[in-house]
């Protein structure tokens, strides 16, 4: 398996029609910034034959048309892109608030999570709401933002058995990540609250409420306020 190193980036074929580019092997804002820069550069100067891009914490998966390109050819095309990353400007981070009603039926795992860490539910909420999280990428389903990094005192493993359906708007945590489920989907993250905001709307011009690179804060709200925001 060829795994050449180019300026700190590592290429690895993921399939016969996709190539992974890794910027290090750790989740860091710096590695993620390089992912976002490469994504921005490929958006402004697209490469013929690339069909899709899947950004993640510290990697970018490039899906390409294997009838037009080989892994080697694509790598040669991408190397000059990597050399230019320093100079790629990124849009200024937006600061976004997500009003969240914690606990109760909206956050059925809140008390368990708090108990696991020797916290009261109120302390757990305060901790979760204390951080301006970075949107590392959108993945899994449309508009699902992977947010980090969760305070260490709240970091909890996934549920042993994922729920068959998690309601849309549920705020979950898993490991050092937190996020909001945009759709009712199966899910294994521990649910601590819910937001009335619609995270993905196909009729909105930017569709996803959150964008890669945004800074996000969760703001605790009451059940009454949740109802008001849900039905304005």
């Amino acid at each position: 398996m060829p795994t050449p190193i180019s300026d700190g980036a590592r290429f690895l074929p993921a399939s016969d029609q996709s190539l992974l580019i890794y910027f290090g092997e750790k989740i860091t804002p710096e590695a993620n910034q390089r992912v976002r820069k490469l994504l921005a550069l490929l958006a402004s100067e697209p490469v013929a034959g690339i069909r899709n891009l899947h950004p993640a914490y510290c990697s970018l998966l490039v899906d390409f048309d294997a009838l037009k390109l080989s892994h080697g050819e694509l790598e040669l095309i991408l190397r000059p892109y990597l050399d230019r990353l320093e100079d790629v400007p990124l849009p200024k981070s937006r600061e976004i608030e997500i009003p969240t009603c914690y606990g109760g039926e909206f956050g059925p795992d809140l008390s368990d999570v708090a108990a696991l860490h020797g916290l009261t539910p109120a302390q757990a909420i305060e901790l979760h709401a204390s951080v301006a999280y970075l949107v590392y990428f959108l993945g899994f389903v449309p508009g699902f933002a992977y947010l980090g990094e969760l305070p260490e005192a709240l970091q909890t493993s996934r549920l042993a058995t994922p729920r068959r359906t998690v309601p849309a708007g549920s705020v979950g945590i898993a490991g050092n990540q937190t996020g909001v489920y945009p759709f009712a989907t199966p899910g294994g993250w521990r649910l601590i609250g819910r937001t009335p905001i619609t995270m993905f709307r196909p009729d909105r011009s930017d569709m996803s409420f959150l964008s890669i690179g945004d800074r996000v804060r969760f703001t605790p709200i009451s059940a009454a306020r949740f109802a008001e925001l849900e039905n304005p």
Partner: protein
Amino acid sequence: MSAIRGRAIQVQAPGLHTTVQDLGRKGYGPLGVSPSGAADRLALRLGNRLVGNADGAAALEMTLIGGTFLFPEGAVVALTGSDFGASLDGAAIEPWTAIDARPGQTLSLGPTRSGARCYLSVQGGIAVTPFLGSASTHALTGLGGFEGRPLRKGDVMQIGPAANSFRKKTIAAHVARRLSLRNVLRFTAGPQADCFPEASLHAFGETTYRVGEQSNRMGLRLEGEPVAQLPGQQMITEGVSLGAIQVPPSGLPIILFVDQQTTGGYPKIGNVIAADLHRVGQLRPRDEIRFEQVTLKTARSLLIEQEKTLASIEIFLE
């Protein structure tokens, strides 16, 4: 008279799980949007050719049990993929052949006699409002297709404009046979192949897996000998490609498919090659499959060869 306006297709019975699909949406991975599209792309493309459409026109994808469809103003149609035992107003019709359905005729399909999916292509294509450039349905999130969902009894879909030109075209039986079921899926090494001990990699190629009942367009869950991982492996969530064979802690592999999640955190032992993905779309629950590893170079030649075959398929005029 050239284009006939206002033609429609009425769903009298939807079948088990019937959705509008084309060749999928490309380029929205950064939003977390799955490609979707036909599970058997070759069948969709050939069906469209039979009725005179562009390869990527939208068609109906039926799963395991077909539906019943009325054409009030008639339509030129073709059935490709698996044989669901079709009849037009009660008279049996051939798959892989263009059929001229007269106004008021009803096309009925039953349970599959071979693989999982059958495609109904209509001249002009199924007309739905595209979402991000594609007519494909992503049922999990309710996006795309006809109201974002599988079809129901009573649904009426418009057929796109087309010159109503019927020519009886058919695809040679030997070609259709070449595209038929094959229960050995070829794969290339996955990005985390080194998370698995040599013995696991070997066993993976030797094991016969059974397609689980919980399989769908998002993923095929396999049952059989669990694949052991090296201890202490931790990986960071990353983008996942179509056909990725991921191994969760249970050791039972999952093939990520057309309605797949765009990123994932389980190690991937391999990836089904592009030239075999259409076969994945024809696998039914309880089908038995095996995996055979090939190099990237072989995978690419197989894809190029398949495209050449497709380009050279003679569509016979009767």
